[in-house]
């Protein structure tokens, strides 16, 4: 399901989409900042997380990837501009309903050390439960499925305090999966993981996307990994999108020089472009931002 024209299509294009119930997430004319900043950290005319696809946000440190993701997830209201989920303003949706449709795995989180994996995953059902409501059969099913999908069945009774970083990460992903949202946004889910766990996480996300048609937006540090994994890339530089589209169009030697400041050669590969980085470019070659 490659959509090479994703970045050229204007407006919503749900009718052209094979996964009819999947949902586009669109940000328009965004200016995003924090209370402590004078200037917006992210400025972006249009960013699209296309329905039913996996979109990776890439860029160097401080390029605004996480900020943009937070804004798209409805957690950081932009100073200007709108974020729309299936044509509906994300910031106008009531909190719990929003959390049933949009899941965010944030990087800023706390893992209470005596909490078991199972209980953590059950917390993912928070937006589905009423104030006093007991755990329903649907909750249990969602929890089981999430645990299954994330492959943490063997850890379910373990406490978070006794898990490795990778195991903890998978447990958190399971929690986000239990939320059963149409859109899943993940902020650097592979950082600090060994290669095996990185691939495990990405595979889980891919499976979810394929099986349930979940729309995925993910911040990835590793451009090569992103190029292999995602249907679309959004490359950010200095808080604005530099380019977006399918990996084989976006990943070029120019992009690696302009955005990441590295001299690299890009060649075709069996699963997306392959990148061979050579050396960092001089600071002076970087853009002023």
């Amino acid at each position, binding site marked *: 399901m490659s959509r090479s024209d994703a970045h050229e299509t204007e407006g919503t294009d749900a009718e052209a989409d094979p996964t009819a119930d999947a949902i586009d997430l669109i940000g328009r004319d965004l200016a995003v900042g924090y209370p402590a900043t004078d200037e917006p950290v992210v400025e972006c005319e249009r960013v699209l997380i296309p329905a039913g696809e996996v979109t990776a946000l890439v860029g160097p440190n401080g390029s605004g990837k996480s900020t943009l993701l937070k804004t798209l997830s409805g957690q950081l209201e932009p100073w200007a501009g709108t974020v729309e989920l299936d044509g509906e303003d994300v910031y106008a949706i009531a909190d719990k309903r929003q959390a049933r449709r949009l899941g965010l795995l944030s990087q800023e989180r*706390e893992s209470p050390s005596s909490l078991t994996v*199972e209980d953590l995953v*059950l917390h993912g059902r*928070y937006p589905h439960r009423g104030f006093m409501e007991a755990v329903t059969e649907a909750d249990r099913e969602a929890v089981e499925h999430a645990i299954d999908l994330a492959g943490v069945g063997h850890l379910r009774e373990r406490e978070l305090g006794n898990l490795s970083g990778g195991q903890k990460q998978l447990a958190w992903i399971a929690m986000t999966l239990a939320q059963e949202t149409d859109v899943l946004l993940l902020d650097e889910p592979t950082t600090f993981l060994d290669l095996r766990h990185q691939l495990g996480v990405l595979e889980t996300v891919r499976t979810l996307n394929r099986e349930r048609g979940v729309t995925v937006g993910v911040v990835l540090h590793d451009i090569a990994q992103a190029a292999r994994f995602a249907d679309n890339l959004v490359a950010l530089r200095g808080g604005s999108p530099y380019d977006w589209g399918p990996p084989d169009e976006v990943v070029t030697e120019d992009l690696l020089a302009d955005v990441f400041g590295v001299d690299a050669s890009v060649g075709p590969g069996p699963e997306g472009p392959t990148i061979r980085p050579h050396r960092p470019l001089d600071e002076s070659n970087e853009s002023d931002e």
Partner: protein
Amino acid sequence: MATETEAETSPRYGERFDWLDRSLAVTCAGSLAVAVLAGLIQVSYGTFSMSVLQAWSAVLDPLVWTNPGVIVSFLFGDAFAESLGLITEVDLPKETLIVWNIRLPRVLVAAFVGFNLAISGAIFQAVTRNELASPFILGVSSGAGFAVLVTLVLVPTFAAFLPLTAALGGTLAFLTVYAIAWQGGTSPVRLVLAGVIVGTVLNSLQTALFFFAGDIGTVQAAIAWTTGSLTGVDWEQVRTVWPVTLAVVAPGLVLGARQLNVLLLGESTASALGMRVERTRFLLSALAIVAAAASVAVAGIVGFVGLIVPHAVRVLVGGDHKRLLAGCAFLGPALLVGADLGARLFFEVVFNEPTQLPVGIITGLVGGPYFLYLMRKRQSLGKL
């Protein structure tokens, strides 16, 4: 949709009482035993000597238990009982009178105060994600205490409204703390720092008020307030504290436990899960303020209970807030009833002098070393 979850794994979680495990049951049962035992000792000894058996049969005196008028007038006041047309004038034996009128209310107030302070501390610790938080640290106790002192010293005619003024003072102090800490959101560290600032100022003001006190009696009463004392409490204090506890604090706990658990996953996660974090945090804080103010209103500022009980319970039953709050609801009363036993009877038993200590002194003497022990035993203390 997930249709094929393995049928044979029947997940145990989420059942109504699956959180009630052995460690919690033992904690609660043990605490209850301590509280009951301490309470029974408390009602058995005193200036008027009676045998333990006499005292215990006085507690169970059928003349009290079979007379709704007596019970109602204890819990709701004479006027209310009479308005219901119940007979409140019952001839009770001397032992029963002493136990029921003087000694038992003190035990009950101690239990309620312990309950409220422990719960208040547990909530504040979770809300600020700080193990060192307590109603005292966050300025709530000082605010309530200051309000109580102002009432006692400057407008003694309002003494009947102490619980109200205490709650008001606690709320104002906490709002001030919140406002100082607020910068487009709050953080645990800023909250605690602001609490220390406000608390310090209020404590100075409290001390300053002593100079305005008319007579030495008021000063002594004021000192008893600021150290926390149960000397001389009777059914009036019980009537002050129980409705608040049962009508506000207890239901709040049932509703709040899961919110606290989710809040502990971090603000971003809680918010991404659809919780309105600031609002939830504020409501939970309000609950903790009410709990703290209710106990300050009847017993003054009893230190350390709000700090150490949640700690001890966390060690015993873990960090889940359903379990933690349930544990606090039992251990808090046990600690305070036990401490008050020491406060009332230590001098009497050891030196044969009828001097009573404020209970806050005992909780401080017990709590300080326990906290020291925790501090030495654990590598890091502070962040929850």
